[in-house]
């Protein structure tokens, strides 16, 4: 068994992971810094890209296979076209830390006022619904959740203010994204009403400015929107596309989609607080790999060696990206576990655990006419089909009950036939009718 040939230096780099990797433009250096020559444990190669009965698996050790992979072939993949994207990636990695929320929320609150992961997730999904409602691009959602998470990690918020915080993050995000031309100017005047956040527009505006202040949004925004899993996924996506394997990449991704595409799935991932501790680049790459894996499985028959070889290329490219992004094997696998959990719940199409408490406001007219049967006066006693009806259980001979006392609620108003004969004239006949007889 070939041991992974990773230098001690490389290992230290992986653990520390925050330095900018000096990536030289030349292909060869790139390959070296990717460390394709040696593959460390727990990284992408461990994922079951390759079916057991396919050729590479026959070698029994996939790592060995990758080891023997032709570096030259790899270099060819790193074309000139990818360079600007690569540069962007590196810059993004460098800046990533300031946008990591590192939010650790308790699962259940000891006191009613603390924010649990369930509450945060519920709010995230509300924002997702608002994004659909206003037909806004995904950037808005990711930016909003980023603001929300970072704000929560910096300030101790009471649970009752969560709605305000989340919706204000949303409107702030819309502003910022519109500033960078990512979405059209949207009229959010009814946001307070629609989101049922129990805040006024004024409250939202104030909270917006607090969040902007706390997160130093205006200073940062001068350079761009926060780094979110979406921005990284876009970078990875374009890098794959501009490589030689672009077509295969798209094909594999499409095969593995099974309904919602990768962008929608990323939204779901970011709405789950399990993933709020990871760096956005890790989340993006992990999801991309899971989708590629699903695609590979869907593409089925891997007896074709040419296809196999290409798939292996895909894999190694992903490994490459992992190295550039300075994602350690450990963080990759932990994130992988979390993302798989989220995705399996999503694919199971089950009811969401965090449901918004919705307010149901009805107009006065409809509220009055809700249930037709409720309006019925006290019903006549049942007559059994094959038995005679006996009167004893029928009328409650409760003595003289005046009409004022007998009607407990407006809709009840039983048939006020008086038992005592001499009070016969007092019978208020109009009360026994359904209300239609005397509309206001």
């Amino acid at each position: 068994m070939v041991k992974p040939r990773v230098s001690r230096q490389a290992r230290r780099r992986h653990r520390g992971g925050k330095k900018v990797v000096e990536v030289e433009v030349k292909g060869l250096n790139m390959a070296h810094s990717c460390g394709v020559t040696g593959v460390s444990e727990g990284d992408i190669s461990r994922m079951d890209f390759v079916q057991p009965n396919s050729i590479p698996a026959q070698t029994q050790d996939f790592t060995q296979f990758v080891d023997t992979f032709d570096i030259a072939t790899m270099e060819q993949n790193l074309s000139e076209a990818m360079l600007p994207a690569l540069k962007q990636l590196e810059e993004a990695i460098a800046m990533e830390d300031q946008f990591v929320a590192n939010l650790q929320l308790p699962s259940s609150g000891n006191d009613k006022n603390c924010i649990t992961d369930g509450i945060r997730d519920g709010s995230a999904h509300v924002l997702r619904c608002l994004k659909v409602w206003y037909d806004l691009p995904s950037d808005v959602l990711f930016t909003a959740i980023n603001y929300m998470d970072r704000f929560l990690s910096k300030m101790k918020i009471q649970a009752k203010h969560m709605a305000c915080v989340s919706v204000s993050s949303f409107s702030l995000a819309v502003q910022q994204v519109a500033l960078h031309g990512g979405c059209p100017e949207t009229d959010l005047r009814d946001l307070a009403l629609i989101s049922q956040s129990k805040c006024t527009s004024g409250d939202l505006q104030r909270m917006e400015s607090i969040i902007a202040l706390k997160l130093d949004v205006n200073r940062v925004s001068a350079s761009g929107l926060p780094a979110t899993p979406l921005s990284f996924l876009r970078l990875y996506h374009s890098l794959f596309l501009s490589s030689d394997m672009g077509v295969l990449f798209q094909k594999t991704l499409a095969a593995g989609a099974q309904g919602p595409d990768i962008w929608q799935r990323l939204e779901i991932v970011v709405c789950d607080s399990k993933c709020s501790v990871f760096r956005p680049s890790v989340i993006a790459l992990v999801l991309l790999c899971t989708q590629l894996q699903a695609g590979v499985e869907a593409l089925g028959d891997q007896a074709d060696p040419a296809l196999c070889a290409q798939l292996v290329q895909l894999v190694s490219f992903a490994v490459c990206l992992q190295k550039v992004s300075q994602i350690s094997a450990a963080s990759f696998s932990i994130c992988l576990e979390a993302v798989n959990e989220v995705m399996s719940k999503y694919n199971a199409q089950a009811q969401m655990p965090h449901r918004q408490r919705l307010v149901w406001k009805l107009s006065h007219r409809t509220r009055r006419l809700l249930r037709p049967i409720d309006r019925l006066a006290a019903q006549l006693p049942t007559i059994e089909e094959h038995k005679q009806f006996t009167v004893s259980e029928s009328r409650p001979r409760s003595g003289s009950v005046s009409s004022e006392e007998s009607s407990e609620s407006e809709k009840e108003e039983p048939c006020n036939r008086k038992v005592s004969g001499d009070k016969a004239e007092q019978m208020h006949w109009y009360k026994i009718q359904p209300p239609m007889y005397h509309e206001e």
Partner: protein
Amino acid sequence: MSASGAFVDRIDPWGSKASLKKKKKKSQGSSRYRNAGEMELQALPYLKDVPSTEQEELFIRKLRQCCVAFDFMDPVTDLKGKEVKRNTLSELVDYITSGRGVLTDPVYPEIIKMISANLFRTLPPSENPDFDPEEDDPTLEASWPHLQFVYEFFLRFLESTDFQPAIGKKVIDQKFVLQLLDLFDSEDPRERDFLKTVLHRIYGKFLGLRAFIRKQINNIFLRFVYETEHFNGVGELLEILGSIINGFALPLKAEHKQFLVKVLIPLHKVKCLGLYHAQLAYCVVQFLEKDPTLTEPVIQGLLKYWPKTCSQKEVMFLGEIEEILDVIEPTQFVKIQEPLFRQISRCVASHHFQVAERALYFWNNEYIMSLIEENNQVIMPIVFPSLYRMSKEHWNQTIIALLYNALKSFMEMNSKLFDELTTAYKAERQREVKRKKEREELWQRLSELEVNSQSNKEQQLNNKEPQLIFK
């Protein structure tokens, strides 16, 4: 008998409704008019003052005395006589309530004679042919001061512990019941209420009359639905039927199922459904609680008669659907979910805000939501497009909020399906926009073609030499 059709004996048959309504005082009607001469009613001794051996005879004499009719349209005539009769009736009511052994055999036919004499009359034609029960006061029976005692008496008679159906059935026969049923068309709600209870007791006590009564009620309803669309007592009859349906033995007889499909469902199509909808809905729901397999024909029937132009009726139908869904069994639900939710989807997209509101309020019903959730793969694709489209289009703020609630509920129910539907909807919209653009371009090209061909023709004409010049 019931009044029908239009008035002909007014001076101005084309008078507007406003002019007809000039008189504001409470209207009273009666078809009883004064007798030939003033009737002197001999004052008889009180029953309680007479020894028990003579009570039966006195009772009968008083009953016969009460057979005399008085004219209530004229408020001043026969005041003394009316008072005597009223007191006698009141006394009779007390007598029959408290006394024991007062219902002897000979008394039965006398009682029925008295009741028939007072109650059975031709109902006067309706004073207001455009009577709107929600706006107008009903025309009351003028002779009510006497009639109410007669009804009260009748009821105590039927409910008395001494009452023997075996003797009673000799005098309360089919002819009697038929005349009683005709009275249900009275405009006076008090009278109808009494009739309701009376008929209920008769149905309850006389098993031999039950089939006949059911048949006659069927006839009344069918005539109402398919011929006249006018009968004041539909609600009361339905209330009685409600208590009958409640007592049906299982398994249900074919006759009863037939009644549901052929009579109760068509009752939904009448214009004045609002007068009796509550009672009708109650009957329908009772049927479904007795036999859930009837769900499919009921829902299909309602969908067939779904109102297309009357929004008030549509709101009523939606209310009834909710009541039905409240008691529906999941296996039955699956059978009717597709056509039903297609209709609900249309209601949600209605521009009448009350219809949309009522339909959207279904999303607040926990049981309905649980049924939708179990079958969300089928239902969500049907309703989603309307919800999404209306969220962008609707004018009413309350509806917008309810649409949000409905969409959010769907999103929570099945995020994956929701995302797929959103994408599909947007893709479809884009295709539509593209198709529209292509269509417009085609028309544009066609019109250009025409212009070109015209200008070509003109050119051709100009190029030709003038062949003929007429001078």
